[in-house]
């Protein structure tokens, strides 16, 4: 200390040396400075509200719990969009940008703006300068912040994805291996493949609303990730007692809204469901699902039709203690799953695995027993406490064009049924199919296989009104049909069938379809007759849709039924028929048509029947 008190001459002069800077520009920047953030600065958040689907993945990944998902004015909840939007709390945000990196739609970003102070009317009490902390909590992109339209700032770099954009492909039979065989084409996921695919799911649950049965999709995918297939099976059976079937042929509407499908492939939800069902042995089902010892309640329910809706209703009724008897007109249970969908898409032993489990719950299935013929609906009404009808759409619809009533003009649904029953069917060398839905592809691909077996080559033309990008069939069905040798000619509509004589047809005249629906949205196709074609054929198949056969319902009951414009029976949300409280309907005659909707209606009707028979209020 002693030395430091001694003052030198230099120390006296030193304070004055700074004067030499008096005429220089200051090196510091004056406040308020206008410096812009760098191009990829992680500043205030931006969100394209129209692109965002409210999946909540940003909230999930946020390590500071800074994000809440909240309803947002002007945003509606609809399939594929929760209607929620992220609200961020800048008291917690640490600007790490994980929310931007994980965003499934790329709607979230960050601007390079970093200055924001709340003044004026937002000024909070006791904090006149800066407002209250709540002022710094806002729905990103929805509150007109000055940086909402900023172009610079952090965006997720291209090619950098926390969820891999490509789905795990499933092994399948090559064209050579499958084109003359009815062996199942898709081989199923291995454990490794399934876990890898399950890893792509962000568990947002947006898919659940779109699934007609509202399956617990994120939960069963998590079970795959955790390698707990027993838990996975329990989750499947909460909403769907036909998982082997749906794991193969479901219309998988869920995948069309999958959040990560917004910037890559959707999660392969259907194949993952199949993986669970395929990998739990049938003999363990009762133990896993806890159904070894079901208590009976002494009440009886009749189910008409052993299709998806009837089996679903029977399953859930059996769980609730009802004695269920299913009446099936055909020799085997399964309905359209067996008699509509070809074996190469859905092998019969897989349908049996699902059905046998339902039977094991005490459900009785009477096959070759057609209601309206072997037994009447009145008898069922008399002998049972309630009746569920899920009789489906088993009548083919005709185009009603000239000569469509000819002997060599067939309905696809009749042929598919005969193929299942192993009945001999007429398969000539040249075939034309009219229709562009999945059933049209089913008959096309089935007959192509038989042609290849019989003649060593395929000659099938499948024509439909819809343009190639608007065909009703799944894209993979169309692509695989083409690979197997069928020719698909979209945008052409049938005009007339030319015949040779009573026994033989010559072919089909078609014309270019200009539009299918008129200005009022009604089905009213218009054609350009200048652009017409003629497809030679020995056989013509109509596959333009199906209709129900409800002739088993007595006339006086039919008269009380109401139908919607799609000719579906109108029922209440319990699928109970107005004026006929003992009767419940489901499946394709009430909604849909598709398997998963049938399963859902069967389940809802089962709950409704239980409510009705216990005399509970709705």
């Amino acid at each position, binding site marked *: 200390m002693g030395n430091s008190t001694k003052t030198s001459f230099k120390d006296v002069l030193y304070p004055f040396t700074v004067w030499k800077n008096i005429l220089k520009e200051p090196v510091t920047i004056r406040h308020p400075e206008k410096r812009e953030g760098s191009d990829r600065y992680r500043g205030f958040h931006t969100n394209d509200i129209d692109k965002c689907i409210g999946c*909540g993945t940003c909230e999930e990944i946020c390590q500071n719990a800074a994000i809440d998902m909240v309803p947002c004015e002007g945003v509606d909840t609809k399939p594929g969009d929760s*209607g929620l939007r992220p609200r961020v709390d800048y008291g917690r945000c640490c600007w790490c940008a994980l929310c931007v990196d994980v965003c499934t739609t790329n709607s979230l970003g960050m601007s390079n703006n970093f200055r924001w102070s709340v003044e004026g009317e937002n000024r909070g009490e006791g904090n006149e300068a800066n407002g209250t902390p709540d002022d710094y909590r806002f729905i990103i992109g929805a509150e007109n912040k000055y940086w909402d339209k900023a172009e610079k700032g952090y965006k997720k770099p291209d090619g950098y994805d926390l969820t891999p954009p490509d789905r795990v492909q499933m092994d399948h039979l090559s064209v050579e291996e499958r084109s003359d065989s009815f062996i199942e084409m898709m081989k199923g996921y291995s454990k490794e493949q399934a876990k890898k695919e399950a890893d792509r799911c962000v568990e947002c649950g947006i898919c659940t609303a779109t699934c007609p049965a*509202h399956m617990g999709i994120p939960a069963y995918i998590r079970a795959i990730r955790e390698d707990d297939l027993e838990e996975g099976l329990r989750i499947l059976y909460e909403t769907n007692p036909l998982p082997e079937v749906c794991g193969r042929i479901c219309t998988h509407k869920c995948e069309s809204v999958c959040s990560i499908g917004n910037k890559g492939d959707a999660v392969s939800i259907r194949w993952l469901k199949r993986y669970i069902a395929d990998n739990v042995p049938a003999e363990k089902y009762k133990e896993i699902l806890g159904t070894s010892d079901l208590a009976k309640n002494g009440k009886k329910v009749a189910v008409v039709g052993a299709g998806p809706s009837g089996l679903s209703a029977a399953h859930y009724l059996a769980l609730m203690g009802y004695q269920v008897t299913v009446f099936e007109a055909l020799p085997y249970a399964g309905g359209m799953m067996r008699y509509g969908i070809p074996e190469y898409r859905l092998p019969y032993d897989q349908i049996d695995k699902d059905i046998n489990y339902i039977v094991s719950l005490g459900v009785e299935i009477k096959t070759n027993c057609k209601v309206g013929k072997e037994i009447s609906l009145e008898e069922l009404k008399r002998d049972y406490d309630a009746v569920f009808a899920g009789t489906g759409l088993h009548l083919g619809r005709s185009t009603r064009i000239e000569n469509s009533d000819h002997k060599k003009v067939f309905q696809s649904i009749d042929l598919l049924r005969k193929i299942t029953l192993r009945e001999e069917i007429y398969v000539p060398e040249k075939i034309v199919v009219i229709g562009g839905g999945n059933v049209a592809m089913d008959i096309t691909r089935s007959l192509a296989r038989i042609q290849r077996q019989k003649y060593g080559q395929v000659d099938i033309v499948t024509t439909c009104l819809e343009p190639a990008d608007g065909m009703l069939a799944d894209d993979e069905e169309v692509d695989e049909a083409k690979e197997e040798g069928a020719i698909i000619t979209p945008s052409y509509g049938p005009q007339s069938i030319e015949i040779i004589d009573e026994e033989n047809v010559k072919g089909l005249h078609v014309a270019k379809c200009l539009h299918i629906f008129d200005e009022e949205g009604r089905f009213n196709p218009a054609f350009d007759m200048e652009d017409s074609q003629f497809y030679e054929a020995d056989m013509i198949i109509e596959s333009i849709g199906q209709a129900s056969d409800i002739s088993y319902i007595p006339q006086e009951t039919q008269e009380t039924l109401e139908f919607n414009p799609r000719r579906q029976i109108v029922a209440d949300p319990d699928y109970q028929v107005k004026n006929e409280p003992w009767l419940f309907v489901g499946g394709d005659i009430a909604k849909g048509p598709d398997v998963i909707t049938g399963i859902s209606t069967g389940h809802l009707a089962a709950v409704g029947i239980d409510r009705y028979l216990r005399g509970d209020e709705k």
Partner: protein
Amino acid sequence: MEKVIENVQKKFSLSEVTSAHGYFITCEKKDAVSLVTYLKNVEGFKHLVLITAVDWIKDNKFQLTYLLNNPQMKKELGVRTYIERSVWPEESVMDSAHHLWPAAKTYQRELHEMFGIDFPDSPEVNEPLILEYWDDIPPYRKDFDTKQYSEDTYFPREGRETDDPATYMKEMLYPFEGEKNV
């Protein structure tokens, strides 16, 4: 640079040499400090750019990287080594390099604080660098649960509420059908 690596390989055994994104060589833990000493004194890598670590939790290893700079060559070389990853509260241990570069003590202090890697004899290595009164596991360890810490430490702002997308969609789109799952 190839020449430098050739020289190094004559004296030390390297398990990996990569040049995909700059030059990185990997050596055994026991050789790491001798190797950087050699690079500094003989090969002219006089400047220590940084020392950092990566937690390879599944392999039960910490990867340490000494990034060195040769001002003459205007080249950088990373020296990597793997050390055993301790189970907290036990600390991993590594030899100190502060005698080569005084600045090393600051990086080592940081690694001690953030990863729980101790560098005995390194000056002030037990002093906190930026964390005050830290009583949790070192936060750069991958088993540190950032979200949990955040929830436990910072109180939630009043009036915050959030909706689960799937549940909210059920209420909005199919409230009736939701009952079947009861």
